[in-house]
């Protein structure tokens, strides 16, 4: 669906996007992840046909975004970051206008506008003036606009930014439902969102792609092991920590005593899972045990790892 090759965008001497290449196939939801100023929005603007690239090429649905811009744009629904809308129009007026602009034929107009109004939960504000809508509704009007012409590809630039948790959930559910009919490229700061929605993640930093994989693989590939937490009642925390450190597969141990209980934070070596050995050790030492767990590596850590290592 999307094919990007060596795409570069320079603003004067600054390379906002530095020869990135990737492909997205039909039906995927791909998350675009990166710190502010990483080049997410710039890349999306180029894909949507708004910005011309300095060099490189991009295709959407087999059409070159720059040489056959109009044809490609017919296949794209784009929601810009700050959701620009005309404040003087009513919701249904705006959607009709946008649908006509994007070539929805007159006979299908009512059906399409009705569909997106329902899908985005805009039925009750249909006749309201956009300028008076709350942020959450505006966001949904933007989404409705992006998909009113049934595009093959949806490009959503931070679709949940600035919304309250309830609205975020609504928008996420909406996006998840869209998966059936559209390929989606979305950018976000919110990492759990990516883990929930996306089949693949592109981590971009300073205009370069740092990682491109499924959330699961990213975790595994980067080898960021989670830490193990052991909560036990021990007589001497220092001696106990030294004892744990001797267990095979344990890299380092730190202990924090709170009342009678001591919490050990144990870093395991790469690929090792010494939980069983730790349990055996605790049993042998006859420590009463309150907790023994391993935290899952979140994408957050992966993200920090990937974008941070570049800075050093």
């Amino acid at each position, binding site marked *: 669906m999307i094919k990007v090759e060596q795409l570069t965008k320079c603003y004067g001497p600054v390379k906002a996007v530095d020869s990135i290449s990737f492909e997205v196939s039909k039906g995927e939801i791909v998350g675009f992840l990166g710190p502010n100023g990483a080049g997410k929005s710039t890349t999306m603007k180029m894909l949507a046909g708004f*910005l011309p690239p300095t060099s490189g090429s991009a295709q959407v649905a087999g059409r070159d975004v720059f040489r056959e811009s109009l044809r490609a744009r017919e296949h794209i629904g784009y929601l810009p970051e700050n959701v*620009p*809308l005309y404040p003087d129009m009513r919701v249904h007026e705006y959607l009709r*206008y946008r649908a*006509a*602009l994007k070539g929805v034929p007159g006979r299908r107009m009512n059906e399409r506008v009705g569909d997106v109004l329902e899908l985005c939960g805009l039925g009750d504000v249909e006749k309201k003036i956009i300028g008076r809508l709350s942020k959450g509704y505006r966001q949904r009007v933007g989404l409705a606009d992006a998909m009113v012409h049934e595009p093959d590809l949806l490009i959503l630039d931070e679709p949940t930014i600035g919304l309250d948790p309830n609205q975020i959930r609504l928008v996420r559910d909406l996006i998840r439902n869209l998966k059936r009919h559209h390929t989606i490229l979305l950018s976000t700061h919110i990492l759990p969102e990516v883990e929930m929605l996306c089949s693949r993640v592109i981590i971009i930093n300073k205009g370069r792609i740092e990682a491109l994989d499924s959330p699961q693989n990213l975790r595994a590939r980067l080898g960021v092991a989670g830490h193990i937490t052991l909560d036990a009642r021990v007589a001497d925390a220092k001696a106990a920590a030294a004892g744990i450190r001797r267990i095979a597969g344990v890299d380092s141990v730190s202990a924090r005593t709170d009342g009678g209980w001591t919490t050990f934070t144990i870093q395991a070596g790469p690929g090792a899972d010494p939980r069983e050995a730790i349990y055996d050790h605790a049993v042998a030492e006859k420590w009463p045990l309150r907790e023994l767990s391993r935290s899952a590596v979140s994408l957050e850590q992966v993200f920090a790892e990937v974008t941070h290592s570049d800075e050093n």
Partner: protein
Amino acid sequence: MRRFLTLLGRELGSAFHQPLAYVVLFFFLLITGFNFHAGVSLLNKSAGSTTMVEAFFNTVYFWFAFVLVFPLITMRVFAEEAKLGTIETLMTAPVRDGQVVFAKYFGALFFYLILWLPSLLYFFVFQWVTSMSAAGAAGSYLGAYAMLILIGMLYTAIGCLASALTDNQIVAAVIAFAGILGLFFLGLLSLFLPGAGPFVRELTYYFSPIQHMMDFSRGIFDTRPVVFYLSSTLLVLFAVFQVFKYRRWKS
């Protein structure tokens, strides 16, 4: 074509959705009404061969309202879209740059023409009350309104260019006003240089709206101003198109 009409409809809609439109309409009516009054007084005093149409379109009040109205009509067209960011949604829809530029231009021009509609009523009322012809001949009407449209075309294009240059409406209005006023006063050059020979007078005739209007409202049809206004409108619109494209590509 359907896309162009959709865009044009949106332009007209947005023009009438804002309060400024009605403020402009109101004050424009006020000034032209006063101008009509001044024209009638002028006719009462002088027993010359001046017609009502001539008197109406050749007063200071007329020109005052005329040059003032364009920045107000056009300052919005591109600047607002850039400010709101809707230029991004607009230009990622499958529409051509040219379609957008023309739709915006004709939207503004159409609003300008609507401003002049009530003026027809003045002449109708004049004829009804005085049972005298407001114009010497039909050509006088035709000439005067043709000139209104021709000068309007060029000045609207200049206003659009100013609006395309910036995303601040006030700045757009100031640039448009300066440009239109500059061009207007250029046409008065021979007045400022009384010592200038016939060459300068001949030259300034080409871009003096006052001269053009004086002739056309008498029913004298001259092709030179027609060619001048049409060609310079096209030139300015071409500039608008280039600026529009350039600004998008730079953003």
